[in-house]
């Protein structure tokens, strides 16, 4: 048999669910002290998530997509990027976005039905939340191409879900990444479900990571609940991208512990057992155990930090709640850089109507 090509997909895991190392820890993330701030960040994200869900339940927010269970993957992705890089999220990667300077109030504004949530005060070139599944992956390929053409040392990082990895735009992104050798990292956050459709119904592929082979990219499967594995996987892909070697697909294996969004009821389609089992592998647990064993964490410190998180999140929530609705003309004011006369006439009419109605 003549072999035209052969491939291996590597799997990365360092901390097992019980918090014990299952492999030699990578050099860069061996010291628990370096990892500690990220663990704290994960707790902050979870506090935010929890409060956002409650806000929705009390009618003060629109539909909200929780990130419960994704904290290691999201925070790990955000932590691996440089400020000059560009991040293109889907709609639940708050953990990554907070690391880049997106403010929680912006998340709330977006889900609260206010476009100003997308006008990030922080990362000016990052993409806003992207509802049309996986289109952000291809947009990020375009961003990466712009970096390459301008010879900038920047990397575009994009993430989508397991469902998103079925989308043609995802394939277009990896095809482009390979064809142009782009500084692009395509993160597939495989949380087991795309609303009600399980991972196995999306594709016949054994791993989602191997989809990168279709474009000749580097492929990696990572335990997405293991922050250290996430960081190491990202480190390899970012290094590769930044040094001009091209794109990667990383599949992060994690689990969506919440409903798809607050508009969803996952009990319709998935069993309690699966969710229960997933809670034993969730990302906080193992890190907490490991950091506690290293003497860097304990219950008291957790309690104090969670209180601080709550305080910080409440500031953001209040800022959101105090934000006034945009004036009616806002729907006209950002459409064109050079607005046509008729649009201005419609704008005037809308303002007049608004005034008439008090």
């Amino acid at each position, binding site marked *: 048999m003549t072999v035209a090509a052969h491939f291996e997909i590597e799997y990365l895991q360092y901390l097992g669910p019980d918090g014990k190392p299952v492999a030699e820890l990578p050099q860069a993330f061996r010291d628990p002290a370096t990892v500690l701030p990220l663990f704290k960040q994960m707790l902050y994200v979870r506090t935010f998530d929890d409060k956002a869900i409650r806000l929705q339940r009390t009618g003060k927010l*629109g*539909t909200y997509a929780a990130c419960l269970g994704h904290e290691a993957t999201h925070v790990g992705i955000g932590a691996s990027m440089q400020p000059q890089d560009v991040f293109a999220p889907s*709609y639940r990667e708050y953990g990554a976005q907070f690391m880049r300077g997106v403010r929680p109030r912006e998340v709330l504004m*977006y*889900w*609260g*039905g*206010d*476009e100003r949530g997308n006008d990030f005060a922080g990362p000016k070139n990052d993409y806003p*939340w992207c*509802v*049309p*599944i*996986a289109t952000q992956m291809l947009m990020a390929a375009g961003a990466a191409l712009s970096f390459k053409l301008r010879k900038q040392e920047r990397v575009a990082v994009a993430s989508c879900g397991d*469902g*998103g990895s*079925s*989308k*043609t735009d995802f394939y277009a992104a990896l095809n482009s990444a390979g064809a142009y050798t782009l500084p692009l990292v395509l993160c597939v956050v495989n949380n087991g479900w*795309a*609303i*009600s*459709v399980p991972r196995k*119904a*999306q*594709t016949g592929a054994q791993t989602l990571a191997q989809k990168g082979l279709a474009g000749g990219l580097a492929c990696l499967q990572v335990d997405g609940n293991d922050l250290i594995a996430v960081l190491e996987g990202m480190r390899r892909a970012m290094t590769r991208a930044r040094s001009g070697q091209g794109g990667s697909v990383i599949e992060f294996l994690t689990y969506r512990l919440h409903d798809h969004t607050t*508009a*969803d009821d996952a009990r*319709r*389609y998935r069993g309690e057992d699966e969710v229960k089992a997933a809670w034993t592998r969730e990302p906080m647990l193992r890190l907490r155990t490991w950091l506690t064993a290293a003497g860097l964490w304990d219950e008291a410190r957790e309690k104090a930090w969670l209180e601080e998180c709550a305080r910080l999140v409440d500031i953001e929530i209040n800022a959101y709640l105090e934000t006034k*609705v*945009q004036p*009616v003309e*806002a*729907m*006209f004011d950002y*459409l064109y850089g050079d607005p046509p006369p*008729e*649009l201005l006439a*419609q704008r005037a009419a*809308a303002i007049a*109507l*608004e005034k008439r*109605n008090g």
Partner: protein
Amino acid sequence: MAEQASAAPAAPAAITLIEAITQALAYELRHDERVLVLGEDVGVNGGVFRATAGLSATFGPERILDTPLDETSIAGLTVGMASQGLRPVAEAQFDGFMYPMVDFIICHAARMRYRTRGRLTCPMVLRVPWGGGIRAPEHHSEANESIFTNVPGLRVVMPSSPARAYGLLLAAIRDPDPVIYMEPKRIYRQYKEVVPDDGEALPLDVCYVLRDGSDITLVTWGAQVKETLEAAEALAKDGISAEVIDVATLTPLDFPTIAESVAKTGRCVIVHEAAKTAGFGAEIAARLAEECMYDLLAPVERVTGYDTHIPLFRLEMKYLPSVERIVAAARRAVAAG
């Protein structure tokens, strides 16, 4: 066959528009084995709006297919199945996710029969929850019917009551050609009416006169039927008698029904959610300018979404045509001539 799929009970309960859709799907699945349903989350989950609730349990996963998350695939698989003798009813989860289907709809569905001189055909339905006003996230509120109305070979249908939802969906599934069936999600659960599960289809190509009037014709479709009827009510209080027409099938358009009404009233206000410029209202106004000029006592008016994107939900109701805007336009028309 499971209980819920058997013949309609003697005294049917009143149902909502979306329940009428489920009822029509179940009816046709029972009576035509070529019919099947496919889309994202249409199976066990019963669809994000519950349009396919219970169908998977009754008809099984080989008739109610969950698809991988890709609209291009849904469109392509649907065209492939339809052209090989099945009658697929595909769902796009929301209006804003339909665009990747445009290529297959235009290049293949709409011209399978034409291209092959009738050797292959494409009897399919694409169901799409349509329009704004439900406080949904971005891309979940779009009135994009005009994407399809300039495409020959399609039918573009939009029901606005439970009965019409049922009858038009049956007609759409039975039609030998591709039908885009847009569902005004804002009125999915607006009210209930009794819709006998008798398998009676309603004609496509017919505009429905919902209210008789003599002073002005209000033409609309989809969810705006609600505001338009309310506007007619408000106008009646002022002594203005408004005829209300639900276009229902946008293309091919039953213009004679509109023309007949305008011949009587001499005035016409067209109401739609989509942005004004080149929205489908333009076609109706154009036909009036071509064929009814001598009947018109006043300029045609269009009350529509503004020429911008529908805003996120804090502002969206300010984008959609309101009863107030419709009434004002009608008053202007009546005052004009």
